[in-house]
């Protein structure tokens, strides 16, 4: 972005300006416009130094900004905004930010505004994550460690199918990125025609097959708890003329023969 001469605005909420600029060389640092929301984002100091309106005010002020050339707004971080502002407010503001060029009745030339937001995935639930994902045209999901990291990129182009790509990279000491390769685009897994499928039932030490007699015996077996019509008849006819079962009870010396219900919870 810097090489192409774009202007970059950074909304810094997570780290101090010194820490953010550390590691960039002077040419990049001179092109970077840093909005410091780290020192006093919630206006606790009340010294008047805090940016008016807090982070939301700064974002909304950016919505009405028009300058020459394309502009990139980097949000460090989107997680901070999402934790402090309602999700709907953040989404509406982001939409307004990135669609500045499509305002009706505006005679000024169309500027491209790119919004770049850093989101810590594990801090938010699936609702806000899904909403922001739907709002974004490109989604880059990072995982892995510094030496072996992967970036899964999802491109959503209008009126086209989304495409996936996975890049493998490692981060160098000067914050540069060493690309190690790209995984192919997702495709349907097809069976390899050269190797025939292996039959696992060959070369066994026990017999898995049944002979014809054994098959017949197996099919004619009735399962003990299966409810068949014979069982149904046997149950229905039981009540007629069949002796009911008896219970023989010999009370001990200590048994209480009180017929009343002490807990009063039997519904007889």
């Amino acid at each position: 972005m810097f090489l192409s001469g774009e202007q970059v605005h950074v909304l810094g909420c997570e780290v101090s300006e010194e820490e953010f600029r550390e590691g960039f060389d002077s040419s990049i640092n001179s092109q970077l416009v840093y909005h410091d929301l780290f020192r006093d984002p919630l206006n606790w100091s009340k010294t008047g130094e805090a940016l008016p309106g807090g982070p939301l005010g700064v974002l909304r002020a950016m919505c009405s900004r028009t300058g020459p050339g394309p502009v990139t707004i980097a949000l460090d971080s989107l997680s901070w905004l999402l934790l402090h502002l309602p999700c709907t407010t953040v989404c509406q503001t982001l939409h307004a930010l990135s669609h500045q060029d499509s305002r009706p009745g505006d005679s000024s030339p169309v500027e491209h505004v790119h919004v770049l937001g850093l989101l810590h995935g594990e801090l938010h639930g699936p609702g806000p994550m899904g909403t922001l994902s739907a709002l974004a045209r490109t989604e880059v999901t990072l995982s892995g460690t510094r030496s072996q990291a992967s970036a899964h990129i999802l491109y959503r182009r209008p009126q086209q199918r989304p495409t996936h790509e996975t890049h493998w990279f490692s981060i160098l000491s000067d914050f540069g990125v060493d690309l190690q390769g790209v995984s192919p685009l997702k495709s349907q897994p097809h069976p390899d025609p050269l190797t025939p499928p292996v039959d696992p039932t060959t070369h066994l030490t026990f017999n898995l097959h049944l002979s014809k007699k054994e098959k017949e015996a197996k099919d004619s077996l009735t399962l003990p708890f299966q409810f068949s019509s014979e069982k149904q008849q046997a149950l229905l006819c039981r009540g007629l003329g069949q002796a009911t079962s008896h219970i023989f009870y010999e009370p001990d010396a200590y048994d209480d023969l009180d017929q009343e219900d002490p807990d009063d919870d039997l519904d007889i």
Partner: protein
Amino acid sequence: MFPELNNLLNTSPDSVEQGTLTLLCDAGTDGSFLVHHFLSFYLKANCKVCFVALVQSFSHYNVVGQKLGVSLTSARERGQLVFLEGLKSSVDVVLRAEAEPHPLGFLREAGAGNLQPLYEFVREALEPVDCREAAWRSPVLLVDDLSVLLGLGVGAVAVLDFIHYCRATVCCSLQGSIVALVHDSGDAEDEESDVLLNGLSHQSHLILRAEGLATGFCRDVHGQLRILWRRPSPPTAARRDRSLTFQYKIQDKSVSFFARGMSPAVL
């Protein structure tokens, strides 16, 4: 302080790193020995320490401190240590008149709670008042522990904001350090605790994670310590993003560290 831990972290009371946030985390075990280590370490390093102690009484920390070679009583008397005894002052909040601001004033609030009074207390304690304060080295904020604030009804975002403001003041403006302990309950349903732990992990320069052994209690190995450096400091480039794991045994006056599986009792 534990000399073996100093060696692992490559620090000493003579060369204290400034402007860092160190996150202490314990999962399945008690990580308070790390709090005692850093308390005695920074007192020996001649730093001005503000200790927000919400878990134990002053005498508890003093007794352990004496075993490690520091006297909290004399440190407090000479102005090196500012001690907020949470257990005692929480009673004051309830009995005090409501109009007076108190660092633990959020206990009286019915809502989610705002830790700005606590931040103001820390700022006043650590900001240099006059030239006499220059006798101390960098200021240090020590919190034991942040999970107690969640239990007292403060939201995770409010605790993150408190640490954010402390970072801005203590780490960036005053070039000091912060050490805070957070518990990892491991409970998948405790979202607030997860948000707090993950949010702080992203902001920390050094993470020390004490874990209980997966196999349960052991007499000779009390747990495992994972050390993760996150600060990309150019002078010590080799340390960047390095992670080390050691097992430890807590003794009466020290803690011994050894590589996994290399406990002296086993060898």
